[in-house]
């Protein structure tokens, strides 16, 4: 009676196609610019991909529960400036980072309560709260940069330190992904996030405390965005208000490229998405193209991936196989 799971194969096909695409893009860049495959450039690629993958991971949680968050980039500005302010006040890096992340968590809770409890429309409500967060980010410095103690507090180590010669941001991203993968793919928590995203009413009737999980998703998204931006600021060696604004596009692009591969938001998919986007960006940077060309390419990638995610290859294959099993007399009514 027990049969092997056959679903995997069709997923492998999509994954194969995706890898071919990734390798193809890398080939094109190598032909255009042989330095693309140099160790230096590849390490740079890793450094570029890591934060995009990280911020995308946070957004994946919100996407899995079926919502959108338009505030995390604004909130990351506030979290980053909070951290910078703490550093400038003479606080040591670790507590400063924790306070910055905590500021993000507070906004995540507000988002989650607005949407999970009061059922406000997610896009508009988060955009509104994001604007508030961005406005509040100005409170610390009135719009100028914060640089005090950035060079002597040790906060720069967050970006420059290496673990076994791998940059710390890359290591942190890898750890975050390992945790994220276990939570979403292997734990009871992940099941509940996915259940809510698929049918929140049925999840509630199944005993899932929906509000709590919606709040948790928005908190994770906001905190991860803040941490990403804090790493960015330690790289810039200053608190820069608008530094966080850049995270919106790569996060959504990474998540939706992932959805186009796996047909639902997944940890793996978001990582592959970030890798693809990072590769394209890095290539354009190396070719000396200006940033607006990059923005343009990112926009195209996002739209193409949404279109592809609407085409349900997997479902088509699955239905065909199911019918074949029916025809073969698999005892299915």
């Amino acid at each position, binding site marked *: 009676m027990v049969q092997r799971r056959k679903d995997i194969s069709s997923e492998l096909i999509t994954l194969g196609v995706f890898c071919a695409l990734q390798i193809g893009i890398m080939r094109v860049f190598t032909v255009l610019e042989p330095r693309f495959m140099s160790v230096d450039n590849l390490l740079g690629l890793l450094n570029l991909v890591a934060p995009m993958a990280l911020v995308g991971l946070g957004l994946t949680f919100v996407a899995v529960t079926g919502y959108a968050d338009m505030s995390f980039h604004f909130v990351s500005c506030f979290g980053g400036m909070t951290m910078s302010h703490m550093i400038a006040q003479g606080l040591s890096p670790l507590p400063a980072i924790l306070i910055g992340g905590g500021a993000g968590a507070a906004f995540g809770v507000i988002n989650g309560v607005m949407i999970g409890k009061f059922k406000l429309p997610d896009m508009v409500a988060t955009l509104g709260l994001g604007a508030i967060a961005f406005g509040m980010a100005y409170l610390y410095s009135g719009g100028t940069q914060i640089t005090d103690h950035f060079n002597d507090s040790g906060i720069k180590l967050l970006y420059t330190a290496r673990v076994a010669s791998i940059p710390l941001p890359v290591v942190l991203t890898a750890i975050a992904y390992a945790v994220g993968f276990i939570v979403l793919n292997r*734990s009871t928590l992940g099941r509940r996030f996915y259940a809510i995203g698929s049918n929140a009413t049925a999840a509630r009737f199944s005993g899932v405390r929906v509000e709590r999980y919606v709040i948790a998703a928005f908190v994770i998204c906001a905190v991860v965005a803040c941490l990403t931006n804090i790493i960015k600021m330690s790289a810039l060696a200053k608190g820069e208000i608008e530094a966080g604004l850049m995270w919106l596009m790569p996060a959504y692009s990474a998540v939706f490229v992932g959805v186009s591969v796996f047909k639902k938001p997944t940890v793996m998919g978001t990582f592959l998405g970030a890798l693809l986007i990072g590769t394209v960006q890095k290539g354009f940077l190396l070719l000396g193209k200006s940033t607006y060309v990059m923005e343009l390419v990112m926009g195209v990638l996002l739209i193409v991936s949404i279109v592809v995610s609407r085409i349900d290859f997997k479902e088509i294959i699955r239905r065909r196989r199911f019918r074949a099993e029916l025809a073969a007399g698999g005892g299915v009514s």
Partner: protein
Amino acid sequence: MEELSLEMTGIVKEFPGVRALDGAEFKLEHGEVHALLGINGAGKSTLIKVLSGVYRADAGQITLNGRQIEISSPQAAIDAGIATVYQDPQMIPSFTGYENIFLGAESESTGLFPRIRRKKLLARARGLLEKFPVDIDLTRPVGELQAVEKESIAILRALSRENMSVLVLDEPTSILTRKEIGILFEQIRMLKESGISIIYITHRLDEVFQIADRLTVFRDGRNVATCNTSAEGIDHARIAELMLGRELSHVYPPKGQPPDDDVLSVKDLALAGRFSETSFTAKRGWILGVFGLVGSGIDDLCKTLFGVLHRTAGVTEINGRKVALASPADAIANGLFLVPGDRRAEGQISDESVAFNVILSNMARVAGLGFLIRRREERLAAWSMVEELDIKTPDVAAAVSLLSGGNQQKVVIGKGLYTDGEVYVFQEPTVGVDVGAKAGIYEMIRRLSADKGVIVVGSDCEEIYGLCDHAMVMYQGRVVMDKPASEVRLEQMLLCGLTGKARE
């Protein structure tokens, strides 16, 4: 013989596993109000959907005013002069009355930008009011109107079609107050006088005698009787008998043993405005059946008991211990599980696998360290549930959406069984389930009742009667019958649910 307004003959409509209409006939005379009656699943709503173009009949003929017609789409039905007003008419709330009346037919000119002449539309709408004088402000947004006023707008919309000759009213009174029903009946009489033939679908037998000239009773996809409402020997009891027929159409498992101890005891449960104080108990070895029509409060009762809606009064005890059930999560943690009535919306996560669904309410059973799912155990648990309930699925990793209705329902039940609860409430347990799978579900419910408290709630009178050991009937938010099943006949139970009055 006088020409009929509408004649439907030999109508057949099949769905997978069910023959909803089996050679049905229906005859409508000019200018009459004709009530269409039948229990759930008798085929009356399928007949109306065939008539209004929602479904296409597999066989049969439809003749309108002596001319044979083909109804291939809702638009074709409207063009032929058949208008349908559903229970809760769909309108655009921010548009005014007259805008809703002419929605989609605002302009005679066809161009890239057909102009809407509001004054002309309003004048046309006022013209309709002369034909059909109802007291209603057509310039107010529909969202601000009362239920009966919306109903009137929907009727005006139907009248705005020049050739409209047959009007179908599908349970028009289910959301109206007593006073509003009076207003609606006045309007129906006016329409009748203007020569329009009306098909009136209802569950409320009192209304049949108030408004209808003739009635047709449907059962098992066929019309079993058509007669004048004033005919001799036609009363509530006779209609209930006709609706049910002689023998039960399904085989139900034998009745249970004399009751054991109470598992669930509910005292004075109430939800203000929806249903009043209701008390009941569920005992081991015994099935409690709660019958009520749509709108009788059974749906609210289930949801309130399960903690989806927040009760305004009442105490729930499980195994003698008082429990506060403020959410489904609380209810499940305390051993109460609801198999909800709307499976797709409330019961199942359709896109996910059978295994995902089965363990969803009690994942701790397959989790290590309290939160890591052991996938091998998960598969084994899901397989054992598949075998226990005889769920037909190629694999436990198959998405629930790919299964048939009956097997989907079994997955939802399996999710409940996997919580190993104390009390199970089944709401409409066999809606959308094919005949073959029904018997299996009935037997499973009976088996389960041996050592759990079981309550079956629904609007299918026959099913509730066939299953239960103790019968409760709800009508407009209150309990109107509460007796051992052995002391009740099926006709009494149905009659009680239809009229709210228990008769001997």
